[in-house]
């Protein structure tokens, strides 16, 4: 027990040193820095399309990024289907039946050639959309996690990063189906991850109330951000890659600056008492769209930390949200089994 006490004292000492170092560089706050900026005008987005077809709760959605598929998105539902939608026509480009219906996440490869999904089966299944005979088949099943798959994101057609309820994230080689790097360090289930715009780093948010910034090639954790009072459910990069946005069950979102290594601002309102389930930043980073348990999406002015709009239209929890790669529209997916396109 003596050793535990020693270690704990040393850890607390280091934590104090880090807090001090962060205070030293805190010569101002974001609120003061943006005092002269005007608030963005009221943002009123309308539902332009409703994507109907899923028969159960939608748990995840992801937009395509390649110019050929910037209007395509993939959604995963616990009806056991992965659907690739053409958001302009609302047609289903592909409806992929899954082996396990307990899916929690899905991802679209940047090239548009593959989609991935995973969930309570502890595996990440990769599907090839551009098979020779036109059929969509399972290309690889990545199994090594000992907990549920909470999130996955492609780096390219041969690498994918997954986060899991076993408190780790793994970088996989899709060709061989093996783990390249295991990122361990979180003390709670990893709930979400996001890759930086330059694909060199990624961030993960976990149930230990912290977010960690990882260097993909060096396989190390660079920075840890705390401050949330409950599980971090959603995480994203600010579009310029220098800041991180997190959304938590404590009903707040926070903006952390990577270069200053600290929290810049918190997005909260006394009227909001339910957890944040998902978030997405608009292309300029000025707007933060966050989905909540109360069936709404709140739009925040990221610099002034004030609500500038609401997207109300779903009849159940908003479980996922994404902004298209051209910034023209945002898509929300809900437990009411519908996806809506807004702009």
């Amino acid at each position, binding site marked *: 027990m003596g050793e535990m006490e020693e*270690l704990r004292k040393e850890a607390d000492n*280091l934590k104090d040193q880090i807090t001090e170092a962060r205070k030293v560089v805190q010569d101002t706050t974001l609120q003061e820095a943006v005092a002269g900026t005007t608030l*963005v005008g009221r943002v009123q987005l309308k539902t332009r399309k409703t994507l109907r077809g899923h028969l159960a709760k939608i748990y995840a959605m992801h937009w395509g990024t390649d110019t050929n598929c910037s209007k395509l998105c993939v959604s995963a539902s616990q009806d056991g289907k992965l659907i690739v939608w053409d958001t302009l026509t609302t047609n289903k480009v592909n409806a992929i039946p899954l082996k396990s219906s307990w899916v929690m996440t899905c991802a679209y490869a940047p090239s548009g050639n593959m989609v991935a999904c995973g969930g309570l089966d502890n595996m990440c299944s990769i599907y090839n959309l551009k098979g020779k005979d036109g059929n969509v088949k399972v290309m690889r099943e990545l199994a090594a996690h000992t907990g549920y798959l909470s999130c996955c994101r492609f780096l390219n057609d041969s690498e994918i990063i997954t986060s899991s309820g076993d408190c780790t994230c793994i970088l996989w080689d899709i060709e061989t189906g093996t783990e390249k790097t295991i990122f361990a360090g979180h003390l709670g289930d990893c709930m979400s991850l996001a890759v930086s715009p330059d694909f060199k780093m990624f961030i993960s948010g976990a149930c230990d109330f912290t977010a960690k910034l990882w260097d993909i090639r060096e396989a190390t954790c660079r920075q840890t951000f705390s401050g949330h009072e409950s599980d971090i459910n959603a995480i994203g990069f600010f579009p310029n890659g*220098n*800041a991180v946005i997190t959304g938590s069950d404590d009903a707040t979102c926070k903006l952390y*600056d990577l270069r200053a*290594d600290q929290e810049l601002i918190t997005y909260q309102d006394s009227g909001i008492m339910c957890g944040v389930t998902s978030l997405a930043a608009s292309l300029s980073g*000025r707007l933060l769209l966050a989905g909540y348990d109360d069936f709404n999406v709140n739009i925040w002015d990221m610099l002034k930390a004030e609500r500038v709009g609401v997207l109300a239209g779903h009849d159940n929890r908003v479980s996922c949200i994404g902004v298209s790669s051209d910034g023209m529209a945002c898509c929300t997916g809900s437990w009411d089994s519908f996806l809506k396109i807004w702009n």
Partner: protein
Amino acid sequence: MARDMSDIDILKMELEQLKKEVSTPREPVSKTSKDTMDWCEAASCTDLLITGVPDDKNPYKPEKGGWKNIMLYLHRNTWQTYCSYVSLFTGLKRLKLERRNRRDVH
């Protein structure tokens, strides 16, 4: 992984990480927040969710004169209503037949 580790191993792992993080280079908030603000403001003018998309350039806006959409909506709803009536009717008929069979048996 953290689940399988003993408390002391978890502490050691935390300590290792904290030792690395103590020496993280940190830039003043005044500089980083100004950079973020400038970048954001410059990009806001082309952010379509803020500026809005003009109707004639919005690929998501339904075509003008939406007769096609109205007909599609009516068709979809009429078919759905028809289907639900058919299933209700066949269900009721089945119930009637079952009741009659039971009475005949007794």
